[in-house]
């Protein structure tokens, strides 16, 4: 379970998060929706201690990420897979080396062949051909890079998967593929996921629950059906806007 308790954060002197209270129960996929610049990615980074809140706390499996010792924080991070907005693959390493870095336990016990087989299996899981193992990130398309990013995130067999704008910058077909992949992985791995997105269609497709971040607070957290039925003007405005922008209505 991931819990955000009264998370407050200022960036560049401006308050971005103004007291976030949000709980993501075990096994649930939460879509964190909100306009661009609302602080969704900022909130997600708090979950693994990449950012520290000015006030409040974040708990992963009951362990405070804010007050954790470096070794505790490392253990928490090994339980969480993080998919970055632009994949954040190491561009000086091949796809295989990127995956080994996430798998590598520093013991060096596994042979090169075993490592390659495990990396190939990870790529198959995200519907990529293992022939890309020896390619560099710059040689891959945007959609492929995102999928390698997902493969890297699941390499350490995490209990939690955090996706930061996984469909941003992708064409509708690739975005659809990534959404399906998120659903597939949720079912296969039984992980708890948070998907940060401003893509309404994607949020409704992958989210069992959707939280709307607005003005630095969680404005509403509800199931997709409850959200569609909501008469709240902010929710209505957001959904209406999403319908206009989306090629397929939700």
């Amino acid at each position, binding site marked *: 379970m991931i819990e955000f308790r009264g998370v407050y954060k200022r960036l560049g002197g401006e308050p971005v998060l103004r007291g976030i209270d949000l709980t993501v129960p075990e096994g649930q996929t939460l879509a964190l929706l909100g306009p661009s610049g609302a602080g969704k990615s900022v909130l997600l*980074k708090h979950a*693994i*201690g*990449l950012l520290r809140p000015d006030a409040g706390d974040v708990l992963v499996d009951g362990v405070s990420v804010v007050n954790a010792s470096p070794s505790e924080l*490392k*253990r928490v*991070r*090994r339980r*969480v897979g*993080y998919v*970055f*907005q*632009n994949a*954040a*693959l*190491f*561009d*000086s390493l091949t796809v295989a080396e990127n995956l080994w*870095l*996430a798998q590598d336990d*520093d013991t*060096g016990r596994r042979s090169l062949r075993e490592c390659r087989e495990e990396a190939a299996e990870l790529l198959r899981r995200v519907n990529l051909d293992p022939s890309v193992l020896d390619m560099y990130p710059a040689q891959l398309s945007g959609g492929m890079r995102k999928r390698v990013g997902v493969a*890297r995130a699941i390499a*350490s067999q995490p209990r939690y998967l955090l996706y930061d704008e996984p469909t941003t910058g992708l064409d509708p077909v690739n975005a659809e593929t990534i959404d399906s992949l998120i659903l597939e992985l949720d079912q296969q791995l039984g992980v708890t996921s948070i998907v940060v997105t401003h893509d309404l269609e994607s949020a409704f497709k992958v989210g069992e629950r959707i939280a709307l971040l607005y003005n630095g607070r969680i404005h509403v957290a509800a199931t997709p059906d409850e959200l569609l039925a909501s008469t709240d003007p902010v929710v209505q405005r957001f959904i209406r806007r999403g319908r206009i922008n989306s090629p397929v209505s939700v």
Partner: protein
Amino acid sequence: MKAERDTGRMSTLAAPRTLLAIHGFLSHVGRATLMAWAVLRVLPHPRRYMRSFLHQAYWMGVRSLPLVLIMAILGGAVTSQTTGNQFTGSVPVWVVGSVTVASMITELGPILTGVVLVGRIGASIAAELASMKVTEQIDALYAMGRDPVAYLVVPRVLGGLAVLPPLVALADFAGIMSGYLVGLVAVDGLTTAEFIYGARFYFRPWALYFSVIKAAFFGLAITFLACYIGLEGGRGGAEGVGRTTTAAVVATTLVLMILDMMLAPLLKMW
């Protein structure tokens, strides 16, 4: 009256700015000290950085060698010619051998190699780490439970520390040889015997140790500072990476010269 008021306002503004600058400098010193401590804590675990260290040492050493040798050859050639031109007729010509050996070993070898490494390695390290920060690759390391210091900083710092002393030794040798050969051609009356006499007259083994010790300090300072500036920088996208690289080159060059000055008294110790 107005001028007095303006002067008063400027002095009241200058005070906080000075305090901010001091605070900024002390913050950097504190963060750099923490990074140095993190480097020391990783050192007893060679498995975590050995592969990357070997790669870095190869890249820094072998790839820098041609440029280091060219710089040293040119430096030696200039020294012997200039000494010959200035001293001919006033002091014995074998002094060319003494001056060439002395200046190559104690000063030109280390400093020219250091400058090559600032431009070739320091700038490259700072730009690489800053762009990794911009593209969230550093965050990705943290997210995977990896320590960026072990993965990125330690191999580079150890690489610099390991390759600079042998590079400087080779630069010293190349500079002396080129000084000798160019001196034979360009300095009137200089013979091999005189150059060797001059060289032996001056030479003390400690000078060679001094050269290598200086090189180790330079290697450590260039790579550590470039890593620190790279990891701290990168704000503002591509422009930020450019600014970070420039800052790294300026700071490492300055520190190189300061270290050079501070290490000079060491030569007199033996």
